């Protein structure tokens, strides 16, 4: 299982899903009404490292985080 967590204002409980890459996650989340509107503006981290493309394989135990637009300070 891959854990998917939604940070900051997305305000959604983490999901555990059977997926093997980020492409599959994108397809899955597009069907989710709470999350789909955030996909355009969210950055993605795999195991706490930001990734620049969807071509990332995922294995059992990996964690994916969605990071919406930020504003510290």
């Amino acid at each position: 299982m891959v854990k998917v967590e939604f940070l900051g204002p997305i305000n959604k409980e983490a999901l555990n899903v059977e997926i093997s890459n980020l492409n599959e996650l994108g397809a899955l989340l597009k069907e989710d009404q709470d999350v789909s509107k955030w996909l355009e503006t969210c950055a993605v981290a795999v195991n706490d490292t930001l990734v620049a493309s969807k071509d990332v394989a995922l294995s059992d135990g990996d964690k994916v985080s969605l990071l919406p637009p930020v504003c510290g300070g």
Partner: protein
Amino acid sequence: MEKLQLFEGSLPVEQITNSWYEEFKSSNYGAIITFVGVVRDENSIDGLSFDIYEPILNSWFDSWQKKANEKNAIVLMAHSRGDVLNHESSYIAAVCSPKRRVALEMIDEFVEDFKAQAPIWKYDIIDGKRVYAEDRSTKIQGSGILN
């Protein structure tokens, strides 16, 4: 001393900046520049509130520390979690450097990159509710890949 410090609620500014000065005044840094961010009273807010994602904040901060160290400088930072009322401080950044120009330029880049990349989310506090400050927020570099 931890160079990145997180606090619940508003920052004890004097305590933090004094401790930084005491810690580093004898380290031969000719320039210590401190930036203190203060919450403004505007748009009828009572204050701001913050969420932080620490693992990625730590790696972002570590990469800045490496960059500063290459110029014989260091960076320091303190930030609030949770609610910070108007006229209190939620963010302090500092650069200590042997050279004045390095410190002046780095504090600018450090604060601006913080605003654009650090995984911190801001909410206005209006009538006791948290409202995401969407219009002031910036997409992290590389956003939108799942779209």
